[in-house]
């Protein structure tokens, strides 16, 4: 329980600090700033991974709950969705295929020479 509380407090703290930096003029969204700062803190050993493990797992595992309210909001957007249905569907499918194939084919070519077995285990 202490573990979870400490982890959540750290995540909220980094988020609020990121939001503060965003408000004073850094053009990157607060959550992403918090992510980058926490990544640096983990890499430098300032914050041990063990402090965050449980809280991060909890938030990421139940992330669907967090975007239920926004998804419910689609009920008010029926007119936009029906008018833009073709544009949205085409944009979704074209962009999905473009990203999947660009990254997949580029990665196949780039990592071809690098052995994967070195990275198979922790």
């Amino acid at each position: 329980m202490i573990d979870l509380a400490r982890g959540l407090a750290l995540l909220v703290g980094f988020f609020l600090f990121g939001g503060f930096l965003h408000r004073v003029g850094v053009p990157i969204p607060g959550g992403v700033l918090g992510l980058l700062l926490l990544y640096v803190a983990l890499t430098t050993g300032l914050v041990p991974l063990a402090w965050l493990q449980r809280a991060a797992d909890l938030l990421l595992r139940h992330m669907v709950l967090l975007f239920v309210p926004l998804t419910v909001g689609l009920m008010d957007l029926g007119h936009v969705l029906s008018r833009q249905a073709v544009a949205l569907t085409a944009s979704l499918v074209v962009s999905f295929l473009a990203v999947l194939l660009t990254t997949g084919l580029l990665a196949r070519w780039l990592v071809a020479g690098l052995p994967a077995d070195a990275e198979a285990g922790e």
Partner: protein
Amino acid sequence: MSVLDAMRHPAFSIAFTVLCYATALALHRRWRWISPIVAACVPIVALLLAAGIPYADYNRGGDLLTWWLGPATVALAVPMYRNGRRLRRSLPRLLLVVCAGAVVGMTTAGVTAGLLGAPISVVMSAVPKSVTTPIAVEVARELGGIPQITVALVILAGVLGATFGTAILTLFRVREDRAVGVAIGSASHGIGTASLVRRSELQAAVSSWAMAASGVVTSLLAALLALLLRHARL
């Protein structure tokens, strides 16, 4: 206070949303084809319509849940660090791949929607559609998109990848674990990553790293785009 007033209270929104989510998860565990997000939203929409509660009233409580997407974004640092550490050797090349994917994803989504006549708010809702929900929502807000539309596109991009992703990659002879992982993570974020967990541990690890990395890269590119747009208007 009437029952209807009580139902407009933020605490009711939160409690009912959590209840619907828990029920949806239980249904999903029993019948895998049921999507947790759809099963959670249907009873909420039905209740709001039946009781005549406006979305804005429901969302006073809903916003308190949405707020936690911020700390959830920060939490992505954990899988990014944990999985990035074991990919030391191929990390620089994979990062290059993720950057290419982010540029291609943002431009193809925006340009396709724009060419088909979508207004600028809808175009900007589509731009971040490849990345994980919490980051996509932040990016959509920065660019002047509609977060609700972004969420719907993000979920669908995830479902497309989870359902057809590996089959399409196999068709193009992409089978190498790291290549599959980085492609699914870039195109279909968490939902795609979850579909890899039972296939290959390495694929899932790379995918989980790629979804966080591509979220970061996309938001950096979007910040640049927002600056350019502001500049162009002045």
